[in-house]
């Protein structure tokens, strides 16, 4: 049987993590079908049909799917689920919101946030904020899986030409209503996929001081992250939070500034390839995961760091 992947998109373009989810899906079974629920979303269906790993696109185009309401999405997914061995999507706020609602209606015990496919029914997943890894085997007939996007490489996005099948929508929900989305627009790389992330914590002392982080991030073409403490204190908005209940990032370079390194923050960044910690407390737990630790006052170190970066002839982008 085929596997069904639920695409995440904005009705114009696919979200990058959909490609990571497609590659996880094709590790389970090469016969990957992708469900695109959207409104005026022909361009999304078309670009997914060009992903070589995708064998078929099921497109349902209706205004009720313009925004993600799990209540609307679920009924139509459940309707076609019996044709599939697995239902898959990313373990980001999109998939976390949606998949359990689908799983419960199918009477399936969901496997959340897998980081590795061991076989078609056995998976590796982090528990306790990544301080342990569980190998789990699911015996349900249909398997509902969410995948940790940063643990799978994105699938190539061009060269394929899968069939696009147009299906009818289900009834619209009256249970819930979309009101608005406040999306923070930025020219920076996305936090989840950036090659370099510069993060600030409570040590930044104010939102105003984040300009020191911004300057370094500009120079390195980096995304800006933050610890929960910095977000709670109102220094920066929630979409920047890295950690167990925020985003998980795996950049080539992660620079933690004024972040002590609480367990829940480490959960979101400790798989990064190279970790730098700048903190004036030499005993801070962040140093236990850092490849390069600098024990210094960040208000001296960050301007100097920028100065040194400016002296370099070239900087990788």
């Amino acid at each position: 049987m085929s596997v069904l992947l639920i695409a995440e998109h904005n009705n114009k373009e696919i979200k990058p993590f959909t490609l990571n989810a497609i590659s996880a899906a094709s590790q389970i079974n090469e016969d990957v079908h992708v469900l695109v629920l959207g409104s005026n979303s022909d361009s999304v269906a078309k670009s997914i049909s060009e992903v070589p790993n995708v064998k078929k696109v099921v497109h349902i185009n209706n205004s009720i799917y313009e925004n993600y309401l799990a209540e609307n999405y679920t009924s139509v997914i459940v309707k076609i689920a019996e044709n599939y061995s697995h239902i898959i999507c990313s373990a980001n706020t999109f998939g976390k919101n949606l998949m359990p609602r689908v799983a419960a209606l199918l009477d399936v015990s969901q496997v959340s946030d897998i980081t590795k496919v061991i076989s078609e029914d056995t998976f590796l997943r982090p528990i306790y904020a990544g301080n342990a890894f569980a190998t789990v085997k699911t015996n349900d007939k249909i398997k509902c899986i969410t995948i940790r996007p940063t643990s799978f490489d994105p699938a190539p996005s061009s060269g394929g030409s899968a069939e696009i099948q147009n299906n009818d929508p289900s009834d619209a929900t009256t249970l819930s209503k979309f009101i608005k989305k406040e999306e923070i627009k930025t020219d920076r790389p996305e936090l989840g996929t950036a090659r370099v992330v510069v993060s600030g914590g409570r040590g930044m002392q104010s939102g105003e001081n984040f300009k020191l982080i911004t300057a370094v991030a500009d120079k390195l073409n980096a995304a800006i992250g933050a610890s929960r403490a910095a977000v709670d204190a109102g220094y920066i908005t929630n979409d920047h939070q890295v950690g167990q209940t925020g985003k998980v990032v795996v950049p080539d370079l992660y620079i933690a500034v004024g972040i002590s390194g609480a367990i829940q923050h480490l959960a979101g960044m400790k798989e990064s390839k190279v970790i730098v910690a700048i903190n004036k407390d030499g005993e801070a737990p962040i140093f236990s995961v850092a490849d390069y630790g600098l024990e210094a006052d960040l208000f001296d170190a960050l301007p100097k760091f920028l100065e040194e970066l400016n002296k370099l002839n070239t900087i990788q982008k």
Partner: protein
Amino acid sequence: MKILVAIKRVIDYNVQIRVKEDGSGVVTDNVKMSTNPPDDNAIEEAVKIKESGKAKEVVAVSVGDEKVQETVRKALAVGADRGILVKTEGIIEPLAVSKILQKVVDKEKPDLVFMGKQAIDDDCNQTGQMLAALLNWPQATFASKIEVKDKILQVTREIDEGLETIEVNIPAIVTCDLRLNEPRYASLPNIMKAKKKPIEQINASDLGVDTRPRIEQIKVEEPPKRKAGIKVASVEELVQKLKNEAKVI
């Protein structure tokens, strides 16, 4: 209006967990246990709504062994009116918990069910959404702001891109994010008062719910250790190392 708040007892968030040598799980004996942190936000929000006059009763419910009573008692000490403990043994998956909660909802008929968005032990992030599905109620997950209006809730949700606002009909399920509010501490007089509040005990087996796990846990292991890093003496050294040794800039 009546609000049911579902809470979970977990290993305290400050504890560095240890994996059992036989790979069968993590050590929980003699380890400090607490309420799952976002569940504290769920209780706080329910109590605040009651204090504003918009709810009459807050009922705290939890699922687990006898010791879970302590966790329910703590919810009573910060303002829940009474408690329910559904007794189970062994691993209970989110699907089974949501089926148990469905039975409790059938009996209690709350207008709202609140709980934390995710438990910090299994990190599943499923129960609220599953319960909403089983009840055919709307769900408002990852809530950072809740406004009770007439027969609807307006909820602001924390999503990857920023914030989203939705409206859901009551009855509804809300899963709470950490920034929803600042949970209060229990005062000593309230801890004393909580000892007199009732906690009803129900056996899961009497609810007619099959709680047997569907997922086999084959093994639990520690993550690969990161190689110990070095401390650099200066910013100049840091930049040189990043450029010439790590080759990341």
